[in-house]
């Protein structure tokens, strides 16, 4: 995997997310454009590169987001652990694969986010405690998954530039 190219891809995606924030919302649900990129890296790269690449994309999003620092690093890394194990069983370039894998990853991230919303005020002794809202998280997960094939389509064509093509003689069983 070419780390610099993936880093630039992550940077551009986060900038797009910042610029489009609020304009892509539908009924209060907002998509996460970075997650499909992290999913794409996790299912196409070698195991170690996929795990670290997804976690680093999460770290970049942590630096730009208002959520707790480290939340996206942790949730993307956790989701990547499941995705790299599924690599041998999926058609990596199929849109349905991107949709389903992104939905799964978004749900994992959503569970982590909801737990953080519940636990953080308790740990910090906050005077007020907002009940975690499940519906916006679910809606955003479905919305993100619906956009995943659109986001992954140009990435499939950029696999060579990203260094995510399989070398000759590569055995997926060893990944």
């Amino acid at each position, binding site marked *: 995997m070419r780390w610099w190219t993936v880093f630039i891809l992550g940077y551009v995606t986060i900038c797009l997310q910042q610029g*489009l*924030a609020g*304009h892509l919302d539908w009924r*209060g649900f907002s998509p996460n454009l970075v997650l499909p990129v992290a999913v794409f890296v996790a299912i196409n790269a070698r195991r*170690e590169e996929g795990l670290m690449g997804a976690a680093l994309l999460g770290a970049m999003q942590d630096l730009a987001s208002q959520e707790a620092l480290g939340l996206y690093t*942790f949730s993307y890394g956790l989701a990547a652990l499941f995705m790299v194990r599924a690599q041998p069983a999926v058609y990596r370039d199929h849109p349905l694969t991107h949709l389903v894998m992104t939905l799964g990853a978004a749900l994992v991230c959503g569970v982590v986010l909801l737990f953080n919303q519940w636990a953080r005020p308790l740990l910090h002794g906050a005077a007020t405690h907002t009940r975690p*809202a499940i519906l916006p998280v679910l809606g955003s997960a479905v919305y993100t998954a619906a956009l995943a094939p659109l986001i992954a389509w140009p990435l499939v064509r950029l696999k060579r530039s990203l260094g995510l093509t399989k070398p000759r003689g590569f055995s997926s069983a060893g990944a």
Partner: protein
Amino acid sequence: MTRFRFNHLFLSLLLVSATCAFLVPREPADLLRAQVDAVFLPVAYPVRLVVAAVRGERLVGEFDADRAPAEAREEIERLRSQLVNALGQIDEMRRRSAERELAGDARKYSLPFRVAGGDPGGRDALLVQATARDGLQAGMPVLNAKGVVGRVTAAGAMTARIQLITDRGFYVSGAFARLQKRKDGQGEELVRLGCSPLLEGMGGGRMGVTNLNIEQLEGAQVRPGDLLILDDPDWPLMLQGAVLGEVEQVERQARHLQWARVVVRPRVGLMQLREVMVVVGKPATAAPPVASRQPRAKG
């Protein structure tokens, strides 16, 4: 690197990130982000401009004769918001007659800043092109022509972050109010409706009030379309009475039927704002950007 050592490294990374996510306080994280936000501006801001152009939004201050009725409606809404704000301040000044604070039009003590982007994590937050050298500090209120927008959470090298009033975890005290015609028919008066709601940001552009029971709301006759105005001693006097939003829905809570849930929406989509005004607390001397100059009144 062997797989065993990589697994250790990766799990350590997850552990450190989880510890930060749950234990690190918000303020140091916001300060770090305020220094890094500028890195994303060169791409994020042009994207936002392109989106605004595609949506056909115009810069504040442009005047198009074909849109005169719409401009007039916008001006009327802005004046109504100012009227509500002024009437609320008068009420508050009667209660705080011993205090000496800044009062009057909050715009005199505000500086305009362009919005450069939003939060990429789905939170209700904005980035503005502003720095600590502009005099911005965490905690400063932020407004627009139609009411309160939020508060500054951190100011960095080239950007400042604003938490919107609709963001999860944002709390502010308010009051229900209604503008209605005076009995003598001469103009309008602001009528407060008697409740003391605590407004809570819910995300997704909405706010909620869940600390009142059904009897209180029915007694105050709160209904959709009523205004929610600022009534919080933690905010400056000049902002008391500023509009927070409009009541969209009044319903019973699903789990506690005795208690009500009031859904409130700001009068304008806060995440689509292109410019905001930060109350810096002293008379503004800087010339506003070209895009924010209002057309001069004729005569």
